[in-house]
């Protein structure tokens, strides 16, 4: 063997000897039986059927040790909650506290939570459980009928819920509806009715046997019951399979309409003429809506709308109603089980048979015999009483007893007795037998009076009840003729009527008088004025239609409550016209009422005219107007056709497309039509102004957004101010505030395409204008105060501007310029020309002017920024800064803010103008101050400031020409200063 072994090459593993294998197997079995149970779980080893340990390989865990060498589950370590976040990203799990609790904590929680106890048994489940246990117990005690263990599921003890038990006890049977009582009651009623009918027709009863009818009844009732029960509780009816479809396949699952169709076809085959066939289309579309236009439906995704109803279809469709009648509960039994139901319809339970002889027979009695002399006439008691009372001869009128207490007592008792009946009188009489005060009840003192009082009260009471009982025409009123009522009311009867009316008068006694008057005063207080109206006034006699409406109005007014919308003519009137008329009516009615109450000698119509005239133009005007329109068109108060004209603005594109010239080309959008009166009132006073403001604003904007003029504006703020002030006081503040608070770009957009959308805004602007004017005025004033200057009101301000004499200006200019040089000198470290005070002043002034700039130059927003940049940033161009400072500091002196401002402007313009010819400058300057012409000032400042300065710097020496002496001196100084600056600059450079 050994030699063989050496010679041979072996592949694979050698087949082990049989006994070897079996021994190992045995061992494994033994281990499995014994060891595995005893060993702790983590020490157990997994072996295959052959008893070999499974080897996974080095990386997968070595010898397999069940799943104890990985995790405690067969699947390994796969967290159950893990889901790929790539696929379902934002899936939020509902977290509850249970997720974070340990097992023991959970049980603890459960202990604390509420739950139903074992005793609580709504549906009988616990009862089932208990029964099961009981059965188990019994089963253990006695040997079971079926040998061997019987599965629990097969023999489940049955219990019923208490509800079912109760119902059963109450007579309910399975498969019936609980609603049965209703149907039986209905059935009972019907039977009762039939009985009554039978009783009334004794002959019929003789002919047809009673029991027969009974039987029918019973049968009827049962069919009803059966029907009812099949509808309410499900009865399992076996549908015989008649089609060739597979089991459980329902071809009509998604198209129940077809099922109906099919069923009908089948039933048609079965019993012809039992039911009329439904048209297929109807059943298909019928559930959506009744009257869709024939021939075409709407899309599957569209809902039926109102407009899809066929308006042209004839008004009545009988088919539909018929259909509704015929449709059965789709869940009801199919055609196949009609027969099964028929069986049931005999009203006999399964397994029972109808008895051939009924034990129970209803005993019937003959109806009572009607006496021969009975007349078929019924007298009603209540009216009789009333009539009796009215007709009763009233007790004579008796003066009340002297004792006031007694009188009150009698009256009170009488009222009570009248109200509660004669019983009360008896009762109180018995009760107060001993009381002497109540002697009047039993014929003592004051009995007569009591009788009288009681009678009166009864009358009253009767009348009242009559009124309450909705009989509009009261009995007494029927009995009374107009004349008698007139008598009662104290009217003077006409001759004839009084002669005729002798008989009824006695019945209308003084008591009736009292009654009637009482009632009248109760019920007819309000309509009194109305009833008086016809004779009183017809204020709109000239216009019958209007008069009619007026009367209608009055009626409505006194009726109260909700008013019907005016019918007829009034509805044709416009809203405004109606409102106006209503006002008119109201005032008229008031006038009439006043006239009546005052009992003035004037006829009310006259008075009315007075008041109409005095109560303002409104009414008369409207009257006249309506008259005018009426007369104008047609005499029969026909107001139509009526023409109105409005402005309407076609869009420019529309005009273009129609090949027409836009009538509004270049015009601002028209003021929109006022929607109502209020709006027009609110904005009317400002509308004219607002238009102006709008225009000027536009102009201003133009200025702002063309580059150079804006510069100019920045340079000459005062001039602008003056102008603005002269044109319109309103403008300045608007400008100011707009510039501060609103966005430039927005405004540009608006101003470039003025459309109707702007209008409301513009309106608001206009409204704000007045407000902002006030605010701005305050603001300027306070500014002036701060500067220590006096701010005169607007108007004198502009005037004083204009009237400043030239010479004075010039001198002040000169002064300003002279002063203006000082700070410059100082700043350039030249020899001090001015004093310390000047220094202080200048520095102070710079600040002030800055502030001024902020306030006044702001309208030109962009330029302000530039200016700010210039003044703040250290410029390369030193001179420009100097000049600027010079300009600003020149305003250090001046006795008023006007001058002060002008100085700025002046000095600046000087700086600007130095580049151009000086002669020119003088003229223009004057002219500008005179004319305040924007145009000239604009062209004056048509070059940008910085350029100016630069040019000025360079040109200055060249351009020196002898002009005015003033200028000469100025030039000299300037030159000096420039030279210094240059030097300074150069030194700085070098």
């Amino acid at each position: 063997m050994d030699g063989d072994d050496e010679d041979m090459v072996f592949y694979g593993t050698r087949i082990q000897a049989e006994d070897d294998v079996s021994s190992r197997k045995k061992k494994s079995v033994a281990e499995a039986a014994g060891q595995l149970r005893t060993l702790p779980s983590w020490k157990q080893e997994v072996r295959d059927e052959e008893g070999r340990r499974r080897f996974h390989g080095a990386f997968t865990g070595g010898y397999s040790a069940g799943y104890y060498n990985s995790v405690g589950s067969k699947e390994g370590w796969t967290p159950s909650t893990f889901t790929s976040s790539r696929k379902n990203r934002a899936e939020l799990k509902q977290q509850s506290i249970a997720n974070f609790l340990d097992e023991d904590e959970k049980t603890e929680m459960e202990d604390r939570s509420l739950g139903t106890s074992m005793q609580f048994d709504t549906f009988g489940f616990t009862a089932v459980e208990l029964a099961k246990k009981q059965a188990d117990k019994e089963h253990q005690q006695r040997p079971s009928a079926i040998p061997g263990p019987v599965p629990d599921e097969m023999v489940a003890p049955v219990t019923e819920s208490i509800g079912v038990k109760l119902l059963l006890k109450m007579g309910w049977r399975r498969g019936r509806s609980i609603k049965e009582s209703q149907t039986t009651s209905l059935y009972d009623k019907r039977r009762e009715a039939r009985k009554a009918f039978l009783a009334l027709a004794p002959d019929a009863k003789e002919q047809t046997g009673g029991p027969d009818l009974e039987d029918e009844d019973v049968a009827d009732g049962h069919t009803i019951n059966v029907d009812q029960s099949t509808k309410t509780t499900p009865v399992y009816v076996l549908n015989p399979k008649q089609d060739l479809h597979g089991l459980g396949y329902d071809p009509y699952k998604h198209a129940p309409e077809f099922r109906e169709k099919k069923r009908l076809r089948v039933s048609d085959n079965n019993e012809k003429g039992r039911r009329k066939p439904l048209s297929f289309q109807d059943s298909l579309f019928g559930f959506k809506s009744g009257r869709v236009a024939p021939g075409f439906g709407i899309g599957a995704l569209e809902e039926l709308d109102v407009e899809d109803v066929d308006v042209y279809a004839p008004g009545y469709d009988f088919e539909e109603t018929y259909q509704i009648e015929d449709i059965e509960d789709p869940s009801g039994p199919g055609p196949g089980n009609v027969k099964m139901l028929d069986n049931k319809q005999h009203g006999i339970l399964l397994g029972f048979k109808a008895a051939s002889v009924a034990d129970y027979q209803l005993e019937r009695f003959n109806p009572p015999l009607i006496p021969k002399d009975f007349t078929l006439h019924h007298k009603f008691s209540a009216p009789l009483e009333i009539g009796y009372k009215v007709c009763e001869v009233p007790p004579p009128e008796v003066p009340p007893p002297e004792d006031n207490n007694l009188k009150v007592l009698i009256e009170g008792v009488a009222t009570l007795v009248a109200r509660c009946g004669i019983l009360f009188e008896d009762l109180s009489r018995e009760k107060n037998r001993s009381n002497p005060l109540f002697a009047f009840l039993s014929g003592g003192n004051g009995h007569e009076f009591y009788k009288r009082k009681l009678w009166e009260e009864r009358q009253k009471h009767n009348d009242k009840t009559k009124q309450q009982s909705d009989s509009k025409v009261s009995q007494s009123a029927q009995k009374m003729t107009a004349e008698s009522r007139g008598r009662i009311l104290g009217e003077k009867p006409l001759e004839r009527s009084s002669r005729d009316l002798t008989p009824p008068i006695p019945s209308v006694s003084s008591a009736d008088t009292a009654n009637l008057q009482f009632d009248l005063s109760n019920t007819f207080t309000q309509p009194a004025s109305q009833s008086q109206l016809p004779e009183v006034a017809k204020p709109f006699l000239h216009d019958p239609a209007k008069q009619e409406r007026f009367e209608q109005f009055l009626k409505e007014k006194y009726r109260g409550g909700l008013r019907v919308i005016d019918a007829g003519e009034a509805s044709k009137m416009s809203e405004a016209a109606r409102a106006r008329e209503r006002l008119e009516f109201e005032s008229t009615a008031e006038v009439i009422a006043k006239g009546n109450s005052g009992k003035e000698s004037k006829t009310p119509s006259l008075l009315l005219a007075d008041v109409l005239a005095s109560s303002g133009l409104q009414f008369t005007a409207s009257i006249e107007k309506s008259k005018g329109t009426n007369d104008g068109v047609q005499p029969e108060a026909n107001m139509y056709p009526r023409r109105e004209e409005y402005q309407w603005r076609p869009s420019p594109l529309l005009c273009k497309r129609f090949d027409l010239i836009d009538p509004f080309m270049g015009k601002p959008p028209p003021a929109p039509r006022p929607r109502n009166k209020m709006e027009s009132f609110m904005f009317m006073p400002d509308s004219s102004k607002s238009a102006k403001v709008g225009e000027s604003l536009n102009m201003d904007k133009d200025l702002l957004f063309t580059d150079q003029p804006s510069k100019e504006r920045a340079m000459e703020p005062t001039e602008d101010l003056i102008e603005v002030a002269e044109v319109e006081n309103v403008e300045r503040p608007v400008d100011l505030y707009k510039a501060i608070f609103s966005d430039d770009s927005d405004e540009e957009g608006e101003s470039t395409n003025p459309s109707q959308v702007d209008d409301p805004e513009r309106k608001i602007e206009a409204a704000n204008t007045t407000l902002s004017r006030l605010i701005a005025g305050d603001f300027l004033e306070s500014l002036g105060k701060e500067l220590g200057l006096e701010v005169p009101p607007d108007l004198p301000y502009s005037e004083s501007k204009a009237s400043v004499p030239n010479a004075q200006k010039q001198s002040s200019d000169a002064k300003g310029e002279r002063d203006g040089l000082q700070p410059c000198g100082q700043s350039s470290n030249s020899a001090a020309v001015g004093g310390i005070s000047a220094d202080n002043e200048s520095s102070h002034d710079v600040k002030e002017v800055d502030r001024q700039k902020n306030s006044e130059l702001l309208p030109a927003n962009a330029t302000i920024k530039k200016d700010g940049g210039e003044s703040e940033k250290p410029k390369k161009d030193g001179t420009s800064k100097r000049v600027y400072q010079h300009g600003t500091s020149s305003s250090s002196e001046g006795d008023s803010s006007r001058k002060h401002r002008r100085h700025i402007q002046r000095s600046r313009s000087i700086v600007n103008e130095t580049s151009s010819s000086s002669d020119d400058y003088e003229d223009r300057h004057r002219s500008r101050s005179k004319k305040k012409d924007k145009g000239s000032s604009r062209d004056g400042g048509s070059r940008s400031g910085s350029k100016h300065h630069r040019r000025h710097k360079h040109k200055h020496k060249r351009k020196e020409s002898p002009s005015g002496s003033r200028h000469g001196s100025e030039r000299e100084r300037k030159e000096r200063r420039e030279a210094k600056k240059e030097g300074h600059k150069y030194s700085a450079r070098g």
Partner: protein
Amino acid sequence: MSGERERLPSTEVNVLKGHEGAVLAARFNGNGEYCLSCGKDRTIRLWNPHRGIHIKTYKSHGREVRDVHVTQDNSKLCSCGGDRQVFYWDVATGKVIRKFRGHDSEVNSVKFNEYSTVVVSAGYDQSLRAWDCRSHSTEPIQIINTFSDSVMSVSLTKTEIIAGSVDGTVRTFDIRMGRETSDQLGQPVNCISLSNDGNCLLASCLDSTLRLLDRGTGELLQEYKGHTCKSFKMDCCLTNSDAHVIGGSEDGYIYFWDLVDASVVSKFRAHSSVVTSVSYHPKDSCMVTASVDGTIRVWKS
């Protein structure tokens, strides 16, 4: 046709059948050669009424088509209806060039302007909208919403837009003057129609009355009564010589009135149901009528 006495078209020449359900409008084209109809079956149909031939069907509307109008050069169509859109069609290809969306409700009437550059539509949403056919803008050029009820009918002249509304007004928007003229008729206006001389306007009101207005003064010139028009949108028109007024009736009759004395000159039963539309040939004595009964009938004298 300015003979001493215009002969009225009362002989039925052709019956155009093809619409399923009610026909809501029938209109001659510019020269009267063809006629267009539209109806509840959501189609627009092009016919040769003189030969009684159905030429083409235009389908794209989602709901009923209420009005249709064709340009003078017969190249484009516009139509409107229950789907709240105005469709702009190419006649030859039958394709929709553009849909103008914007009406908040059904659109009752559409018209091209003289140059076929603008479509003006009148809607149940109380507005008139002018749509641009030239640009690709989907927004209306202009919305006129001074009406206080559904606008039923619109007509255009060279310089004006005229529309009648259920609020009882006929409003004329003069583009050249920039003026809106409102004529209160006091009755819901169903349809408006201009006389051929352009001086008068015929308005069909829902009180079963046609009213003739002087356009210059707004005066009521005449009222024509006798027919029934209480609940449906029905057309009315004038003959070419403006001598007669034609209107349909809800009982299927066609009425001819004398323009001046308002007497019923002729009436005959044309349809079995409501006559929705009447259109008169621009030159000849010929008329097409459309009805709820689904037919369009061509009448000649």
